């Protein structure tokens, strides 16, 4: 029985590994193809099935005027918007999370858990519900197709994540530490900054990672709320998809776009193995 179990286990792992890697490998080979190799029949291995060609990759470097695909600007736009919105969300979200963890609020029948729920439930909001009014609203204050308009919208997306993770993290820092800081002469702000925050770095990192991930991958809001002035990376790639862009440049652009976040995978795994992520789970 045991041998069967082990065999199944490894079989499953191999299967899933292939499944995970498949699209990347396919995109990789495709990026080196040309018209013949794509349309005559399905080809896989370069030099065996087809002649590799650097056209797909060259296109990334060529300027748009010469038929190239410019992804540098969208890259930086995405980076800027994601990081700014994440930073604001984390700062505001952490402050609120601290209050919800340490203090009791009561306004009528609204209590702590309700307020926390209010924050977290923003994730339930389907983007479509907000996109129509935001579309009209941002255009009325001339923030459509702008970086700041997007940042404002992203805050709604990301602050709930920061609050969700940090409330749980703070709940695991003993309140007695805050109390001791107060007794030692800190007012509540100092207690937070000097004592609680330094002990919450793992939580902040986890919150930061999730905010950056969920901010970076957004497509919908960027799609609806920006056009030509500002382009975010996901939008750019999808735009390539619907035009007559050949598969090879498409694949090359796509690969280059997803490469960076893979670094995050390494960071996350390190924290996981160190046991620091367990604090994020409720």
């Amino acid at each position, binding site marked *: 029985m045991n041998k069967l179990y082990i065999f199944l286990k490894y079989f499953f792992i191999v299967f899933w590994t292939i499944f995970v890697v498949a699209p990347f490998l396919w995109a990789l080979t495709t990026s080196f193809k040309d018209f013949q190799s794509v349309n005559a029949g399905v080809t896989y291995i370069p030099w065996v099935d087809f002649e590799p060609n650097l056209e797909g990759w060259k296109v990334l470097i060529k300027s748009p005027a010469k038929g190239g695909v410019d992804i540098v600007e969208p890259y930086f736009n995405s980076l800027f918007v994601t990081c700014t919105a994440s930073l604001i969300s984390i700062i505001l979200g952490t402050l609120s999370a601290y209050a919800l963890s340490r203090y009791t609020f009561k306004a009528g029948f609204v209590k702590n858990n309700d307020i926390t729920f209010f924050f977290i439930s923003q994730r339930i909001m389907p983007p479509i519900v907000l996109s129509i009014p935001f579309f009209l609203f941002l255009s009325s204050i001339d923030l459509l197709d702008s970086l700041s308009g997007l940042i404002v919208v992203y805050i709604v997306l990301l602050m709930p994540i920061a609050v969700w993770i940090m409330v749980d993290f703070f709940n695991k820092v*003993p309140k*007695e*530490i805050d*109390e*001791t*800081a*107060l*007794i*030692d*002469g*800190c*007012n509540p702000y*100092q207690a937070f900054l000097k*004592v609680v925050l*330094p*002990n919450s770095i793992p939580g902040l990192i986890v919150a930061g990672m999730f905010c950056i991930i969920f901010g970076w991958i957004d497509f919908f809001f960027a799609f609806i709320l920006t056009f030509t002035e500002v382009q975010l990376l996901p939008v750019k790639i999808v735009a390539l998809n619907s035009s007559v862009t050949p598969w090879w440049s498409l694949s090359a652009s796509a690969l280059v776009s997803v490469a960076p976040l893979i670094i995050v995978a390494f960071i996350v795994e390190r924290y996981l193995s160190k046991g620091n992520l367990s604090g994020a789970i409720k």
Partner: protein
Amino acid sequence: MDLVAKNLSYKPTDQYHLNDVSFNFKNGNLYTILGRTLSGKTTLLKTIAGLLTPDSGEIDFDGKDFLKTPVWERNVAMVYQQFINYPHLNVFENVAFPLKQRKMETNVINEKVTDALKSVGLSGYENRKIQELSGGQQQRVSLARSLVKNAKILLLDEPLVNLDYKLREQLREEFKNLFSKGLSDETILIYSTTDPRETMELNGEVIVLDEGKVLQVGPAKEIFENPNSLKVAEISNDPPMNIIDAEILESEVSFEGISISAPKHFNNINNKSFKIGLRSSDIILNEKGYEFEVELAEISGSETLLHLKKGNTKLIMSIEEVMNFKIHDKVKINFKIEKAYAFNSNGDLASSPFRSKNG
């Protein structure tokens, strides 16, 4: 600089955590708050520290209204029962924290921290991380941090309860030394505990607390000798004092078919039926005594606790050696009746062997 409280009440749920508590603490004294778990000890300490605000009542320190002073401006220090230290700082930084907060000069800080660490026996540990220390050592760091700021009020909330037996004994000794000579006459020491033995050892002024109410106040010896009610007798004895329903008739005390001559201090008892309180150490084995049956034999350290039963009466007696008894064994015991207490049916003390109620 007295710490005076009047009628403190705190009722956050439907139970009182503090019920009309008043006290008057003076400088240079050690006060022990004795009470069972959930009796309001921690609440009281936190209220004095300023972490909790009472629903009603006043606290004044040195003539000033304490309730108007926020925690961080009160000059108090507190040691918790869970060893609380700042995890992200090392030992030195932990102890230096309150001083840095007061913006003292570095060399003054260094001097004070070194002294404090010395007085708790942790010299040389300055650069260690908190996580590397044992429980006892962590608690010493907490204590050092409390001492270093020369607070006027030092609060200790069952500080030894999470340490093992030997460590507890050792630290208790060190505490007593520290308290008697290390602290200035300006400090008020408040120590809370559930352990009656600890209370006796500390030998300070005791406040007995139960369900948020102050039951009795007095020196440790007084609480021990003259508990003013059944409740206090329960709280201040470990193992609990035996309470037996008895009757007195013509100078004979009788219960469970046993008749003993009443001790002199029972003369004042008016009611025919009352309750006898007898410590487990005041019951002895005696071949010519009364027969009881063993329900349970506990060996605790170097003493044996026998749970005995006869008819409707259950007793616990303590024997100062390790003896082997089995369940259902029969033993013969006698009572040191001259050490017995008498309580009225409403729980008040009627007569005590150390002092009769009327005189």
